[in-house]
């Protein structure tokens, strides 16, 4: 059994009357890729900022790598790396200069900085661009450089706050592959994302956060299992409207309903006679059912089911 490298108890952050993080308990194991999911405003970034010493928790205990967050911020900073949501480097500096500057701030010796800079720029395929001003780079290049800067000091733990948001597919894949490579070398990774598919693909453990609380945790299979008692029916009709969805929700046998990529997803408690009931309902609304079938739960379905809202709301 691997040890917890990050452990929080009742971690809370309040901004005035607003509670951004409501006393969460996290257990992140050494060497895993920990997925942190949730819609915008769920409290993910606030949690990351607390764990990375950027903001002070209002309450709760945090231990990272055996250090107490409240007292040993400096020691924690020495063993973590962070890939922030934004570029967060100096656009006037070249990749080489940016990495060298970060290395100096970690107190690394000049030879090590040189060696590490070259190594990392090669890893993130920016070595050929090492002498150019970073400000003119594309989003993908900037994010790769940001990742390189974050692991300049060979941290034990790497926090990645939505590292692929807004990137093209190639860059997303590149970041994802780099993440897996770093993890295979032993680095613990805390990965925040909107992208369920991505989370399903690379995360060992997933925590879903909403309104400052952890609403689900476990492996993707475990989480999907959480809503197993509900059955999902997918219906294709010509003209799905919001009115139909809200009327569906009022039906006694329906747990929840929503629109997903033009298809109506309906959660029901009991499988029996459900096709007939739903087709009949559509008929009464003058809607022709093109197709109706049972569907496997995806993480996204779980998410929507649990939070009662779409991820990108």
């Amino acid at each position, binding site marked *: 059994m691997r040890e917890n490298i990050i452990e929080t108890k009742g971690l809370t952050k309040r901004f005035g009357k607003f509670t951004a993080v409501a006393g969460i308990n996290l257990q992140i194991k050494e060497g895993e890729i920990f997925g942190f999911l949730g819609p915008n405003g769920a409290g993910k970034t606030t949690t990351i900022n607390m764990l*990375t*010493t950027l903001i002070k928790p209002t309450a709760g205990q945090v231990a990272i790598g055996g250090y107490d967050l409240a007292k040993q911020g400096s020691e924690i900073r*020495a*063993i973590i790396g962070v890939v*922030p949501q934004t*570029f967060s480097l*100096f656009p006037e500096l070249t990749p080489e200069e940016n990495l060298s500057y970060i290395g100096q701030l970690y*107190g690394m010796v000049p030879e090590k900085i040189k060696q590490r800079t070259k190594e990392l720029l090669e890893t993130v395929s920016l070595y050929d661009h090492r002498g150019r001003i970073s400000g003119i780079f594309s989003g993908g290049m900037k994010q790769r450089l940001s990742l390189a*800067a974050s692991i300049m000091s060979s941290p034990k733990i790497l926090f990645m706050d939505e590292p692929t948001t807004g990137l093209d597919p190639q860059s997303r894949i590149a970041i994802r592959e780099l993440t897996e490579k770093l993890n295979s070398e032993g680095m613990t990774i805390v990965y925040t994302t909107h992208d369920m598919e991505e989370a399903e693909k690379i995360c060992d453990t997933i925590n879903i956060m909403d309104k400052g609380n952890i609403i689900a945790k476990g492996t993707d299979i475990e989480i999907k299992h959480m809503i197993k008692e509900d059955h999902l029916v997918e219906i294709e009709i010509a003209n799905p409207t919001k009115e139909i969805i809200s009327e569906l929700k009022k039906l006694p046998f329906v747990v929840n309903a929503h629109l997903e990529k033009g298809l109506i997803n309906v959660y029901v408690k009991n499988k029996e006679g459900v096709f007939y009931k739903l087709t009949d309902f559509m008929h009464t609304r003058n809607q022709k059912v093109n197709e109706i079938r049972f569907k496997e739960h995806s993480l996204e379905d779980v998410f929507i089911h649990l939070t009662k809202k779409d991820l990108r709301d």
Partner: protein
Amino acid sequence: MAKRKNIVEKEKLLDYRKMWAIFQKNFVVITRDKTRFLPLLLFPIFMIVVFGYTSGTAPKHISMGVIDYDNSPLSSSIIQEISNSDTFSIKKMLSTEGEGKKLMDRGDISVLVEIPPNLERDVNNGIPASITVLVDESDSSVAGTSKQMLNLIINKVSYGIGAKKIEIFQSSVGEAGNQLNAYISQNVNSYGTIASKTSAADSTLMSAKEIIDYNVMALSKSLSPPSPLFFPSSYKNNNVNYSASTVIVPITAAYSATQAQIASLSGASALMAASSGNIHSAGSIAAQSDAAYQQTHEYQYYYDNVVVPEQQISNFKNYNTNALLQPLSYNEKPAYGTGKQAIDFLIPSIIALTIFQGAVMGMGRAVAGEKREGSLTRVFLTPTSNVTIILGTLLFYIIFEVFRSSFLILIAMSLFHIKIEGSLIAIGAILVVYAGVSTGIGMFLSSLVNTEQQYMGVSMLVSMPTLFLAGAFFPIESMPKFLQGLAGLLPVTYAGDALRGVMIKGFSLATIWYPLLMLCIFLAVTLGAVFMVFKREID
């Protein structure tokens, strides 16, 4: 899991290597971002040029037309004087007033100067003459400056003429004085000769009188009794018979001759006595001449100190400017040094203001901008202490400001022809402390906010009062008391005082201790405030 090698150094409160890294980073960032660096460098220069030429300086190169009816050396010297000044630029030489008025109506010229015929002749003869000046009053600043400057120029020329006349008069007085001196010394010599000759003659006469007196006495004795008889030698040698007739007669004759001799000797004695009297009176003349000589000296003194100045004054009055041109209207002298203009006293304030505004402007990026950009967050994520981050950042900007200020002073010196009277070390000391205060205030405000836009807002709170209370546009003395009090709370006031003291008045550091002390207090307070508000937490 692979064993992780520790390559990270433990955090230190003050890490010089990291400070140096921050310093270098700031240098590269500031110099590489041309859109920021160039304005940052040029803005203060632009400010100093604009401030320097707009505050306290009069309009320049006012276009002028000139009509010269006199065409004399004097009139051309007046025109030369006008064209030498920066205030005017002579656009055209005209021949009639009507022509000039037409140009003025068109707005081609703002001032018309008319030099009357026979100006030089009248001036030389002491006849009052005047130069007519027509000014376009539509621009009051141009009109005011023109009148004042022309008044000055004409007075200057007029004084020049007066001074020349005085010079000529002084040289003629000097010549007369020389003549008088020569006359006196010549006379004194002759008096001296008379006196010495007189006394020599006196003693010769005295001894001559003694001999005569002796001989008179001897002759008198030989006459009564007549023995031994005195015979002329001829008688002794001839051995003839001595009859009464032959003897008495010659004796009687001899006696008579002797009597005559005595009488003549007595006469000589009387003459001598008389001449002795004359000699004595000559002596008294010599004494009198000495006294006269003394009096002459006194007169010379009186003449030099009373008569000559009186004459000069009366002559000067005759040639006075009143008779020539307009009365004096401007005769203000600066309190320090010579050749200083009012602008010289403003320049230090302008420099102080510009340094402040430049420093405050530059600090927006330093903290707030990096916060916004996220790059400061990246620094916060490293084991680098706040003290190191703050000092590393301040150190760079202070040095940058000192360089920029020195550059600025050099520009001000060449643009406004200012000579630094005091020591450069003193100026350097002021600049370092003041740059610390200015960048410190900028960093303080920058730490309070999260974006450069917000920074623009809060920095106005200090930059606007500084702009208007620096004394660069409006004299502080003429402001209401509460504004004067407010000016006393601004570092720019003390920096201006300190720089003025050293640059213009040539004061040493010891003399400007008060403003310098105030700046040091500002520095301490500012740095304290920066350490208080610089938070590692991000919002």
